[in-house]
Structure formats: structure tokens, C-alpha cells
């Protein structure tokens, strides 16, 4: 069940505001996500603009589009999508994230429909979207094929599915687990299970089995000199992202 904001206990709000501040602190617990965010947004906005022939230089370019953000957390992707004019539903399986994201959206002056639910439950309800954002989730689920099939069901025919995850090889083990979790402590230990990581070929295969047609893939590459992420057409060795469509 979702927890609508107007039913939230007012004494709880201060707590949620503090948690929202933590989610949105660029140097806090979610620093790696904040660092990756501009690069993810560049990819997402370009893909959506391409698919729906929108001009990113125009005001509210995503007006009229319904976007679902799965695993929305504090709203790091949902808010930018809403700011670009889309009607956004943010879903998270972790109930505690919902009021936190709601509090922050209100501070940002954005109307976003945040719900405590899962992709499978939403798909069951028959709701559909123009775009499904499925970022850094698939490596955490127990049944990737079942999950991706639910993502397809959530799309209107012709809809766009953007899915990012982590490759499985010795380099990604070094970078994502030893580097990010052990050395840099960017992520809590045990955040990732290496065996659940998926190679781009495996993901393309799974997307196809789920009834989606892959149309693009790019790497997210971290540059330790500029300390920033960029998109690469070739280097998909650690973090990467794919775009696929539900055939019309």
C-alpha cells in the first residue's frame, strides 16, 4: 500500500526531512549516485527525446509523457523527469523511501506520484506508461526474466524501457565490489552480489525473451582524473545502460 502524504504523522515529517536531506546530499551516503546522475540523465533524456521526437531545448519537453521510475529511492531521477514536464510515478519496494521522496518533491515544488509497490504488482494492476526507467535494479532482483517481463507489461505498445546494470567480469568485480564497497566505502558492504551481475549479451537476451527489442547500449565510464562519469559507445566493461522498446 502506498502512504499518501496527507496521512503522514506530522511528528514524523521532521524525520523524513532529515532523511531526504541525506538522500540529496551530494557528499553523503548516496554520493556515487549523485556523481553518476548527470551522465544517467544525459542518456535518459536523449533516448526519450529521440523516441518521442521531443526538443530538449524547449520548455517542458516531456509534457504529455507518463514515466515510471522503478526503485525511485529519494527521487533522484523522478524529480528531473517531473521538472521536464512528465507525469511521473515513482515506485519503491522499500516503504521508508516513499515519504522521504514525497517530502523532497514538495520542497522542490514538484507533483510526483510516489508509491510503495513493485513492478510486478503495478503490472498486475494494468497501468501503463510511455517510459519505464529501470536503473540499477535488475542486478538486485531474484528473477530477472520475470521482472523484465513485468517491465514490458508496464509499457504502452511502442513504449521505451531504459535499463542500466553492472557487467560481470573481473574488472567489474574490482571496481564495483572491491573499489566502491571496500576501498572507497561509497556503498555499504554487501550492496552487490557479483554473481547477480549481468553481461550486456545476457541482458540483451533477457530483454528479447521478455518481449522487448533492444535498440541501444552505452557504457558509463568513470574517469578518476576528472572524477566524473561519461558515456562511452564502446566501454561497457563495468556500468552500462540499454534502451529497448515494446514493439507496437
Amino acid at each position: 500500500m502506498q502512504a499518501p502524504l496527507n496521512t503522514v504523522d506530522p511528528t514524523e515529517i521532521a524525520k523524513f526531512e532529515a532523511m531526504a536531506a541525506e538522500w540529496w546530499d551530494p557528499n553523503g551516503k548516496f554520493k556515487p549516485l549523485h556523481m553518476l546522475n548527470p551522465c544517467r540523465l544525459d542518456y535518459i533524456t536523449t533516448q526519450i527525446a529521440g523516441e518521442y521526437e521531443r526538443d530538449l531545448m524547449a520548455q517542458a519537453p516531456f509534457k504529455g509523457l507518463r514515466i515510471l521510475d522503478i526503485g525511485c529511492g529519494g527521487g533522484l531521477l523522478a524529480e528531473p523527469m517531473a521538472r521536464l514536464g512528465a507525469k511521473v510515478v515513482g515506485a519503491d519496494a522499500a516503504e521508508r523511501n516513499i515519504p522521504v521522496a514525497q517530502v523532497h518533491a514538495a520542497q522542490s515544488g514538484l507533483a510526483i506520484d510516489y508509491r510503495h509497490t513493485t513492478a510486478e504488482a503495478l503490472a498486475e494492476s494494468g497501468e501503463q506508461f510511455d517510459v519505464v526507467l529501470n536503473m540499477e535494479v535488475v542486478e538486485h532482483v531474484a528473477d530477472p526474466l520475470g521482472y523484465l517481463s513485468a517491465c514490458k507489461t508496464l509499457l504502452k505498445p511502442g513504449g521505451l524501457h531504459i535499463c542500466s546494470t553492472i557487467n560481470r567480469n573481473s574488472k567489474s568485480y574490482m571496481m564495483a565490489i572491491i573499489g566502491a564497497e571496500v576501498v572507497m566505502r561509497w556503498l555499504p558492504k554487501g550492496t552487490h552480489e557479483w554473481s547477480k551481475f549481468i553481461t550486456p549479451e545476457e541482458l540483451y537476451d533477457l530483454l528479447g525473451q521478455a518481449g522487448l527489442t533492444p535498440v541501444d547500449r552505452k557504457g558509463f565510464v568513470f574517469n578518476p582524473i576528472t572524477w566524473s562519469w561519461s558515456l562511452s559507445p564502446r566501454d561497457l566493461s563495468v556500468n552500462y545502460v540499454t534502451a529497448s522498446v515494446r514493439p507496437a
Partner: protein
Amino acid sequence: MDNPAPRPIVQVMTTPSDILIVGGGLNGPALALALAQTGQPVTVIDALPSETRADAGFDGRAYALALASQRLLAAVGLWEAVEDHAQPMLEIKVTDGHAGRGPSPFFLHFDHAEIEEGPMGYMVEDRHLRRAFLNAMAENPRITLVDGQRVVAQETGAGVASVTLADGREVSGRLLVGSDGRQSGTATRAGIKRTGWGYDQTALVCALEHEKPHHGIAHQFFMPAGPLAILPLTGNRSSIVWSERSAEAKRINALDDAGYMAELHPRFGDFLGRLTLAGQRFVYPLNLTIANSFIAPRLALVGDAAHGVHPIAGQGLNAGLRDVAALAEVLTLASRRGEDIGAIQVLERYQQWRRFDTTTLALATDAFNRLFSNDNPLLRAGRDLGLGLVNAWPGARRGFIREAAGLTGDLPRLMQGRQI
């Protein structure tokens, strides 16, 4: 099925403008035009009434706009209104002068013909720039100008930045930009401290009419007391920036016009024929001041509010316009991604871009000034030799020309003549 939209629990003040710019000088309006051009609504708050800014006749103040700055003005649609009043700077001659003895035989000669881009820059009078900015802002439906209003208080919080005006009005947006000069109230109210030092130097500024044409040549004489710059204006006129030790400057400034000219004449020489004063005389004590941070949550500083450099090479406005171009680019790209333009991680990109550049400029102009405002014979010999070497080596000379034209470093798109 849609769920009902959540009701906001925090009252967000709505405003037609996302960006509030405090300061109506030159950088503030330039930023407003650059942002409005990419579709972002902007409010400019100016402590001075627009009539005061608009009705100024020729008062002797002028700017040396580097080529990169001219490109920025062209990109925001302002250049057309200024072009007819702009004097191209075709050559720069730098001489190590010695009062009473004439210039040293070693001098630097920079000719725009050595680079492909065009003139190194343009001299534009303050009055033409101001008027063009006011007209362009008035014509732009995305810009709201609140003039003749001081900011008395400001507040930045989660999601919103707001200022209170002297008349009690409150204006709010997502980002507050301070372009309110060296004594920036915006920076002070945000608790941003400054680092700086004064020089025992004061710049005397005026415009002259002269008998002979200047042929678009700018001159810089390095005198022991400070540099004397002669910068070509349209017609047979030049703008003078003349630095002296502060006590001496005070003495000279107290003289009547005839006495003032009698002091200037031997320093200036006779190469442009008879000289007469045109417009008013100004004095500016020279000092250097850098804000310890160019940003804070929902706040950014540009121009002199961020860094007031020694105006030795006319780099103050040029550095400010470079801030403007960089900030406009950072904010526009963030806005196209749907990012919150007031978020610290967005503003951090601007600070990273500009901070190194401006600190380097401040230190370089400071060192340059210390080296040349000196009568130590050893330093003199060394710098004469240095100038001679730079002049003899075309690569170094072209480097200096490109630097003077503002074409070096990580140039913002608006300064490359491109749109964001």
C-alpha cells in the same frame, strides 16, 4: 489508475522567475540575457534606478572587451547595438617606460594580424554598453527588471532562495546570483568571506581627445609608479588608465584640469599631438579581492562579487563575462537534464570551472604589476630582456595575443561564438 497527487506539506512560494540576479551593472544583465535566451525566466534586481544608468552622457569610462567577450555579447544579441560605437584594437604596444627618459628600446608589439580570429578586442564606452543592456532587457519578455531597489535581506533554504527588497516586497526563485560588485552584499549576507589586499596604488581614469589618429593601437607604458594604458576609442579619442602611488594620485586628482593635464602630458608624450580632456575624471584605488567561495547552496557569485582583480590589463569585465558564460552554460545544461539549478552539485561545476582560472589571473596580474611597478635596476634589466625575448619569439607573442584576446583556457560555448 492514477492516485491523487500528493498535497504539498511545505508551502513553496511560486514566482515567474527561477533565477534572481542581484546587481544591474554589466555582468548581471549579460547573465540575464544569456539565460533568457535559453528559455529561463530571470528577475534582475538593481539598486540603481534605470534612468540613472540610461541618461549618462559620455563620462570617460570605457572597457577593453577581449575578443571572447565580444563573441559573448554577439551570442546574446547585444553586439549589434554596440558595434557602431566600438573601436577595434588592432595592435598593442607594451613599453617599459621611465618617466623623463622616454620608453626603453625593448618593447612588445602584438599585432592582431598574427592570429586568425580578428582584432584582439574592442574599446567600448560604458554608456553605450549600459544603454544597450537596458534596451535588450526591456525588450525581452523573459526578463523582469526591478530597478531602484536595494536588497535588505536574503534567505536560502530547501528548494527556494528569496530576497526582501527595501520596499518590503519579497521575491523568490530557485537560485540567487550575486553580481553586485566587490562589496557584494549577496556574498556578505551568505557569510562568504573574502581574501584580498590593497595596493598603494590608485588608478586615475579619463578620456582624451587628441590631434592625431591612434590607428587602433593600444599602448601600455610600465612606469615605476604603475602602468599607464592608452586605449583607442572611436574617433581621435583615447581612454587613459593611469596608475600612481595613492598619495601622488590624490595630489594629482586635486589639481584643476589644466594642472592634471600638465602632469599627464610628460608621461603620455607627444606621439598623438595636442591633448584635451574629454568627459569626467575618475579615481579607483587598486585592490584585489577574491571571495573564499564562489558558491553556496542556491547561490552563485559572478564578476567582481567573486573576484575583483587589479584592473591592470583591463581583465576585470572580461573575467566577469567569462563567469557569466560559464554559469549560463552550467545552468542551461543542468536545466535541460531536469536537474535542480540551485543544487550545490550543479553549482559546484561552475565553481570548478572558474575558480582556478580566476585565482591564476589574480595572482598573475598581481605579480606582473609588482614586477613592473618597480625601479630596481636589476628587475628593470631582467624585464627588459624578458620583454625583448618574448617579442623576438613569435610563438610566445602569439600566445600573449591569444591570452589578451581571451581565447585561451577552457572557453565557454558562448565565447566560442556558439550557442549553448
